[in-house]
């Protein structure tokens, strides 16, 4: 019997090639899309699974009462050790400092590399279980000035992965260039591992050497709030059991100033990647999951509609089977089985398609697929599940509807369905188009917002500004003085208009460097931690910052600049007024700069203070304003000048407009994916529409014939047939718009600066759908309307 069913399925697919193609390919495309998204989601969630203890490791983050008092992801230096001392459940902790180091081989080759680096406690390798290709996890970082390299960096510097025992020259921040001994080499980890932090992926881990990058004091003092900490809890420990005791813990171990203003937070390593950066990655995962469900829904409905259209032609077969004695259950089983077989076929095709599209898709979303074997058992089971569920969902409606026909009616050939069933089908079409409207409107809004982010005025000039980030570090007044000739040399390069030395560029501030400031007369507790820029006197010129009042900082200036927010926060309206810095030092406000977006548009502009490098000699970046003409030539000349004055320093640079664009990479990728998903949904819905129109034409064949006999024109018939579908799309539009409006408003709320949600995206969506529907319906309807009426009438 099964064979008989299968024979009928495949022969009828073969006979109705057009339907079979639309049906199977529509579902296959939808499924391929789903499969890719399932892989993406699994990949995003497969964070740090190479580490055996991933579920027991937590980052110790922080909650600060005052925003800006510290970062949410770092904590004071002693916190990990104290936690292990205090809580029996805390088995081990590790502390890391994250930054950039310039390194090169000590063996003659002078190529220098600027790489993301961790300074870490000696147990870091064994704590995480970082897989070492060479060297011993236990001993690697035990000695000061030891370094463990990522395999690719070892190869780049030493020409071999086995660099254990070789010497790496590290440009320290405070002790000049120092030799470090390579004690281990690790295999590169997945992109969403903890080894990625901020912008870069870590390429080396060095042991703590007092004074090199930071002093013993900074490495251990409560004053340093900018170290990363991880703690490992004993197996079976509920993190909440520890979290509940953390407020008391702070009171017991931390200096008094921390009481009540600071609390550590345990952040599971497993979800760090998804939750960091304001949960951007998690939002993307949710969005994509939603898209996958919508597309699958559209494809399923499509499939159900087409299967019904197809099945309606098979009334005779049902009648015959029933007259022979088939029970209703057997007919239902047959049609469900058929739907499952076709869905399975589509799933296989979809899987093949997904396999082919896998690499382009992951390139598109801008993330590598980190699953070691993506086509494994869970994926296979997901596929089988999808095939079964789709088959049953899509087959249930035609199966129940068709099996319910009286055999006598079924035997009459083409089945006509009652008003209830027609309503259900209309409901399905509406649902399908609701999904299409949601996706299209969503795509339009995402596109508009992304374009806004790319082009919104930021309050500073981002074009034609080069940022050289590999400035050799020597953080002292002498170090700053020694860079003056370099600055002069860069200023002399033709095409360079201005040069400024600073800690950050105008686009990338607010990363946790703060100054406690208050008005004179206020108590120290009233001090506000204000984000701090360290700049020289040319910063305003390079970035074209506008002044609201006063003048910009001069050379060796001991005053500060405020932005408008900060001035408002302190109630300062004019330049020349004093503020108290820290405990007692009084500084004068030289000027007030107009607010500019020193962080991405996800965040509002917060108070900002700018101080001179002459006062705090911490720098990282040369910013160079180009004249605008011939940037490529100017860049070449700048590089030549750089190597001329700083032969041992690497030349790493970005353009500031690229830095700005990089802040919206997630949105850009999301935008691309949503646009593609919307196009897919429209394509699949369009295919479904073709099927539905052909049912409608089939069922109204006689009506069309009669109308033609009575003198109806072809355009009037096309209008008659198209009208119903236009109404359905209209209903879908009305249902979907409020949902899309709410959804997209919430998405936009994730941005401090966003477009106003106007009617345009919805109007465009509506117009586009209308065109698609009218075009699809008209082509089908035209064919029916042009037929000779006797063809239709003689069947009756």
């Amino acid at each position, binding site marked *: *019997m099964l064979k*008989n069913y299968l*024979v*009928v399925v495949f*022969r*009828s697919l073969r*006979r109705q090639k057009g339907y079979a193609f639309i049906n199977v390919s529509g579902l296959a495309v939808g499924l391929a899309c789903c499969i890719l998204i399932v892989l993406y989601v699994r990949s995003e969630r497969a964070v740090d699974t190479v580490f055996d203890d991933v579920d027991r490791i937590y980052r110790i983050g922080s909650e600060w009462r005052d925003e800006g008092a510290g970062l949410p992801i770092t904590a004071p230096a002693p916190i990990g050790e104290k936690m292990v001392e205090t809580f029996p459940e805390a088995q081990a902790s590790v502390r890391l400092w994250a930054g950039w180091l310039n390194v090169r081989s000590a063996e003659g080759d002078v190529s220098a590399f600027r790489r993301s680096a961790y300074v870490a406690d000696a147990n870091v390798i064994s704590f995480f279980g970082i897989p070492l290709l060479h060297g011993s996890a236990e001993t690697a970082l035990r000695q000061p000035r030891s370094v463990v390299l990522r395999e690719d960096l070892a190869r780049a510097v030493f020409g071999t992965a086995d660099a254990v025992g070789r010497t790496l020259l590290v440009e320290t921040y405070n002790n000049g260039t120092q030799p470090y001994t390579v004690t281990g080499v690790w295999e590169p980890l997945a992109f969403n591992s903890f080894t990625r932090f901020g912008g870069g992926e870590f390429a080396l881990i060095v042991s703590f050497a007092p004074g090199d990058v930071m002093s013993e004091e900074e490495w251990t003092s409560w004053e340093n709030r900018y170290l990363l900490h991880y703690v490992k809890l004993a197996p079976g420990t509920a993190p909440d059991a520890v979290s509940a005791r953390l407020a008391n813990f702070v009171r017991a171990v931390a200096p008094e100033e921390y009481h009540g203003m600071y609390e550590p937070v345990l952040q599971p390593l497993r979800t760090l990647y998804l939750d960091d950066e304001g949960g951007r990655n998690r939002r993307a995962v949710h969005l994509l999951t939603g898209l996958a469900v919508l597309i699958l829904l559209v494809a399923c409905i499509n499939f159900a509609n087409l299967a019904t259209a197809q099945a309606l032609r098979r009334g*005779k*077969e049902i*009648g*015959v*089977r*029933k*007259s*022979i*004695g*088939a*029970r*209703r259950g*057997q007919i239902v089983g047959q049609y469900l089985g058929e739907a499952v077989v076709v869905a399975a076929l589509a799933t296989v095709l979809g899987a093949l398609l997904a396999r082919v599209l896998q690499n382009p898709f992951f390139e598109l979303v801008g993330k590598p697929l980190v699953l070691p074997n993506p086509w494994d058992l869970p994926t296979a089971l997901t596929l089988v599940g999808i095939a079964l569920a789709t088959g049953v969902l899509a087959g249930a409606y035609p199966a129940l509807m068709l099996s319910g026909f*009286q*055999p*006598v009616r079924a*035997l009459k*050939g083409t089945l006509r369905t009652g008003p209830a069933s027609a309503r259900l089908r209309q409901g399905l079409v509406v649902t399908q188009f609701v999904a299409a409207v949601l996706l299209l409107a969503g795509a339009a809004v995402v596109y508009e917002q992304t374009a806004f982010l790319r082009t919104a005025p930021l309050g500073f000039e981002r074009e034609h500004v080069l940022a050289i980030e590999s400035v050799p570090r020597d953080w002292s007044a002498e170090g700053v003085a020694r860079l003056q000739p370099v600055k002069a040399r860069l200023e002399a390069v033709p095409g360079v208009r201005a040069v400024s030395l600073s800690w950050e560029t105008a686009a990338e501030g607010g990363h946790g460097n703060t100054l406690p400031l208050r008005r004179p007369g206020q108590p120290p507790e009233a001090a506000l931690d204000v984000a701090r820029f360290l700049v020289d006197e040319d910063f305003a010129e390079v970035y074209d910052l506008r002044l609201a009042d006063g003048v910009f900082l001069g050379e060796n200036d001991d005053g500060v600049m405020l932005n408008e927010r900060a001035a408002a926060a302190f109630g300062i309206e004019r330049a020349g007024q004093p503020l108290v810095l820290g405990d007692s030092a009084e500084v004068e406000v030289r000027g007030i700069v107009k607010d500019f977006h020193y962080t991405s548009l996800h965040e509002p502009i917060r108070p900002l203070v700018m101080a001179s490098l002459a006062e705090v000699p911490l720098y990282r970046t040369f910013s160079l304003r180009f004249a605008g003409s011939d940037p490529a030539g100017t860049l070449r000349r700048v590089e030549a000048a750089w190597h001329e004055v700083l032969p041992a320093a690497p030349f790493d640079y970005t353009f500031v407009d690229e830095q700005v664009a990089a802040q919206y990479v997630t949105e850009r990728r999301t935008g691309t994916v949503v646009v593609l998903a919307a196009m897919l949904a429209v394509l699949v819905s369009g295919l479904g529409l073709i099927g539905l129109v052909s049912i409608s034409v089939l069922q109204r064949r006689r009506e069309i014939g009669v109308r033609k006999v009575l003198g109806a024109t072809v355009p009037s018939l096309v209008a008659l047939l198209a009208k119903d579908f236009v109404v359905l799309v209209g209903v879908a539009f009305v249902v979907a718009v409020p949902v899309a409006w709410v959804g997209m408003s919430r998405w936009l709320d994730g941005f401090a600066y966003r477009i106003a949600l106007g009617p345009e995206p919805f109007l465009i969506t509506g117009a586009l759908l209308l065109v698609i529907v009218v075009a699809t319906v008209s082509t089908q309807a035209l064919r029916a309307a042009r037929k000779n009426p006797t063809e239709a009438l003689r069947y009756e």
Partner: protein
Amino acid sequence: MTNVDITGRRPLIRTENLRKVYTTDEVETTALNNVTVDIKTGDFVAIMGPSGCGKSTLLNILGLLDQPSGGLFVFDGTDVSGFNERKRADLRRGTLGFVFQSFNLIDELTVYENVELPLLYLSLSTKERKERTEAALDRVGMAHRRDHFPQQLSGGQQQRVAIARAVVASPQLILADEPTGNLDSTNGDEVMKLLSELNEAGATIVMVTHSPADAEFSHRVINLFDGHVVSEHFMEKEYALPHQSE
């Protein structure tokens, strides 16, 4: 031919005051009105009457494809008038064979597969299905076309395949609805001869027809008009047949 009530024939179908009423929104149409018929095993009964008189409705009810609105319907000793769809489906299986005017072969199945279909629903062994299917095809002279699809056959050939399908499960009753309606006279004659042979071999046949010529092959003609049985004739008495309007 001999008279009715020969010893050894038992009653197969008895209806008493059978009614069928179709109700739409506002109109009630009575298709069958107090129809009483008796059919015994081995009978070959033709039901005749003008279009819309209720012949097909009666045939569909006798074939358990439709339910009466009232009255008694006893099939092989059991009152089946109140049977639900599932029970009727079970009774149809292997007990009844249908021959339709438009053949109703399944286009996706070959001649052999079409004939085999009723046996699949009876869950017979492969071997038994093969023997019985081949025997049925031999009987209607279509064995040489077993691997053809219905579209590749002439109308007469298709109807012979349909008859093979109707008899393959050795049903107690064969119901034929205008079996020659879509055929030319030569093919129609052949199909009627085939039905006659089956009847002579013991099959009970109830046939709806417009054609007096086809009715000649039967033992007995029941005339319906407006949902009533208006007359019953036994063919061997050579009654003059009433004029049939098309």
